């Protein structure tokens, strides 16, 4: 393995989503050297992959990409994408962090996005790094690549090296900020959701991708099974969340997320009936409640208080049956939907690495970083600390950056 060694006293930020980006910029603007480590192929995290944001209905990538660009250009920030923290050990003056960077066979510094590699590849292993990534480049999926080397022959800048190996980077750092955000939990263990039984039962992030303007369907709402416009869509809240079997906590962002998705469905196709099945419609936050009241095109979104007990494909049709009790009328119903969107199965993706037997950072049972246990877990922000939306994550990131800065000031003083 190649090794790059750096010997600075800098801050390490694990996670290049909203929280990580804000913290990185805040620290860098005050002159700190920052290493930003991101597991994915590009910065932006989960939010950059969304279609729209609530409550402003902005496109998700647009507000982010200017800050991402700032991060990319900033002389004080070093970004490692496709990288994970493998170990952090105490050392004289701070910590030694070992970062493992997975290679992209295509050097993004040399790729001019001509696309010849993609055309030449017989296995369709070449894909753009992301939809709204600037500057754009391609990556090769190592699992699909058969090393036929057709791409190398056509690449005009010699950007491709299929033998590019993983790099281990050793960093001497003084503080770590955990900003690893969230991921999805598989809902299959909960039988009532019927996950996998019908192509149109999907999670909200899958629905977002499926109906995104920048995605496959160019913003059109169509069923996965038939390709036709659905007549009715059910949004099921608290799927997996507030549920002692799986995630006991509330994921906090899903109610607003469902309202946003339902509103965008209405905006594009007002004839589609949208039902949101909820327990508490949590619209806490700036302008959120007002946003939830908006009725677009005089076609209201139906809010039903109840947690469906069964979601099942209807035999001999393409539709899906949802069996529920409307707790406000005490009536039990079975309704028919063409698409079902499950919301709630978000869980913090804290990094688990080894440090002499302990996993770091220290996490609670649910997986949130426990900042009170030890020094290495002290600074965390965003969903990995506590379910949080974009605004909350940004605020927490800046606050953590401030506390890290105090930390440095204190350390500097003790050295003087």
């Amino acid at each position: 393995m190649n090794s790059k060694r750096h010997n600075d006293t800098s801050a390490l930020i694990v996670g290049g989503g909203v929280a990580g980006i804000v913290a990185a910029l805040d620290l860098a603007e005050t002159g700190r050297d920052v290493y930003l480590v991101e597991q994915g192929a590009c910065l932006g995290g989960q939010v950059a992959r969304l279609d729209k944001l609530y409550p402003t209905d902005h496109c998700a990538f647009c507000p982010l990409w200017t800050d991402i660009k700032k991060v990319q250009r900033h002389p004080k920030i070093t970004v490692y994408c496709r990288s994970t923290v493998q170990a952090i050990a105490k050392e004289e003056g701070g910590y030694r962090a070992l970062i493992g960077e997975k290679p992209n066979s295509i050097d993004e510094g040399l790729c001019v996005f001509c696309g010849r590699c993609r055309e030449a590849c017989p296995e369709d292993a070449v894909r753009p790094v992301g939809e709204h990534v600037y500057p754009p480049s391609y990556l090769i999926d190592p699992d699909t690549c058969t090393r036929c080397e057709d791409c190398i022959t056509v690449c005009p800048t010699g950007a491709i090296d299929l033998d590019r190996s993983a790099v281990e980077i050793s960093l001497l750092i003084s503080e770590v900020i955990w900003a690893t955000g969230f991921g999805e939990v598989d809902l299959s263990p909960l039988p009532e959701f019927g996950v996998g039984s019908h192509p149109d039962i999907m999670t909200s992030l899958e629905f977002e991708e499926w109906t995104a303007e920048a995605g496959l369907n160019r913003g059109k709402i169509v069923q996965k099974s038939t390709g036709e416009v659905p007549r009715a869509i059910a949004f099921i809240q608290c799927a997996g969340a507030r549920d002692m079997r799986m995630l006991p906590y509330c994921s906090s962002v899903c109610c607003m997320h469902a309202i946003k998705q339902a509103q965008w469905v209405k905006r594009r196709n007002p004839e589609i009936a949208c039902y949101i099945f909820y327990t508490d419609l949590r619209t806490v936050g700036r302008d959120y409640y007002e946003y939830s009241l908006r009725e677009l095109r005089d076609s209201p979104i139906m809010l039903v208080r109840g947690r469906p007990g069964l979601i099942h494909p209807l035999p001999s049709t393409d539709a899906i049956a949802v069996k529920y009790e409307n707790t406000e009328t005490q009536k039990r119903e079975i309704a028919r939907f063409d698409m079902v969107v499950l919301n709630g199965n978000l869980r913090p993706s804290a990094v688990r690495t080894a440090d002499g037997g302990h996993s770091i950072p220290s996490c609670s049972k649910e997986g949130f970083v426990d900042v009170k246990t030890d020094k290495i877990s002290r600074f965390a922000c965003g969903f990995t600390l506590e379910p949080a939306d974009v605004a909350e994550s940004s605020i927490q990131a800046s606050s953590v950056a401030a506390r890290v800065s105090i930390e440095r000031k204190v350390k500097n003083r003790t050295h003087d």
Partner: protein
Amino acid sequence: MTDVRVYLCRCFSEVDRTVDLERIQERLLQNASVASSTIVDSLCLDSDIQRVAAEIKESGAERVVIAACSTMGRGDSVIEGLAEEGVDRFAIHLIDIREGCAWIHQDEPEGATFKAWNLIDMGVSLVAKKDRSDDVTIRVRPEVLIIGAGPAGLAAAVMVAKLGYTVHCLDRAAHPGGMLRFISRSYPNDEDAVLKLAPYLDEIHNNARIAFYPQARVETVTGFAGNFTVRFSSGGQERWIRPGAIIIATGAMVYLPHGLYRYGETQNIITQMELERRLQSESDSIQNAVFVQCVGARIPERPYCSTICCPASIKNAMRIVEKNPDARVSIVHRDIMMPGSILEDYYRRAMLQGVQFVRYRDDMLPAIKGYEQVRAVEVHDSITGTTRVLDADLVVLSTPLVPNPDNRYLADMLGLQCDRYGFFREIYPLHPLETRMEGIFICGSARWPVSSDQAIVQGEAAAMKVISLLGKGEVAASSFSRVPGQKFGHATVNPDRCTGCGNCVAVCPFDACTLQEIEEKYTYISRVNKMRCKACGNCVAVCLNGAMQVPEHNYRAVVEMIKRAF
């Protein structure tokens, strides 16, 4: 005649497989402004940047037009790279003939070539006619004004001071602490509010960098980020300071529900704040308490959720049960707003402790029973479908936080915006504590109702944003950009043409234009504050006399471009 050097990038035939660059080059030779043109294979590789930069510097060309990919492709990195090698950024202009021409007109090579030629021609005339805006650099004053000394303001003050800057903290009350002084315990950790405030109050009084001004009122604010001038009064005395940044942490007020639920008419119907005061005294033991949520909130006059009322009720409900295990406490609600992990756990604990939750619908409100003294609360339980009568010797009305009526006055003074309720507006989504005015930040309940814990986090976050500005020492007007990197330029007034009509003043979204009186001529002339101006161009479009221009994109250039477009 300006010397323009043109580079035509083939991008390894991505461009010239559709666009005939050689034909374009022939025509360029006939353009008097063009000193030379070169076709290159690529411009964005490191080796290219160095070579091209050297060529440009050697040739002494005054302007460079690069016809290549788009700014969002590799074009930006080309300009950055050349700038790093010492080429004047102002002299370079990038034309997109790849994404914007070759790649979308692959079926029409003739049309594409003609279009590319037009675009390059337009670019050459723009770059020949563009002028340079003045830049100005100011020293950033290393002092901060914090308006409000509640938990948000205090947290900000302490953080800024610890990070090495002078703080002037104002509050209109005689003592710092804000609303936290009147609360018994804070949620979710049941911390004693007095103990929570103590370290901050300690720092305010003992840290030499923090000056606290009680009974203060802001009178005037002028200036811009890095250099504000603020006049205020404190305890009757007039003062003035010159901070580099301002943090607004003026908090909010409790809504008093006169006219709702017999508040003020029947005894023992109180607000949450009044309950806090009762709990502070520790003397009372309450037997039957009913909390009513969303009183005056999430209604058509006030369609927002005030964040703290559900957690506060649960906190106080649990407190009542702690003090009197026989107490029967119910929370009558429309939704329990406890998002997240910590609050959801808190909610569950309350249920396990025996607090009852009764859900009502907004079209069937609870009713108070009892005239002189409250007796019970009658509520239609929407989950069971029955009407229940909850015995109550105390009814607590959870009312929302409402903005300080002074917010609008402050907003006018500072050029900020308030939303329709009166809370300060932010820049959504990644800059929730920043406002439309550079150098002015908001935090705490002045921005949106938050708990004391959240207010403290926001205060620290605002402090961090302030430090980013103050730490720079010196800033150039061109760095105050809404885009990554440099600002495009500044609007500039031609004093000979300006008639002082004030259109620019009215339309500027950054309040960058002001009218200056020219006494000798008995007229006014517009003056642009370069620190505030972001070159959006609104003033240019509304100027009746063509007096306002952004030099980098002035009207002569635009006219030439339009002429050469087709």
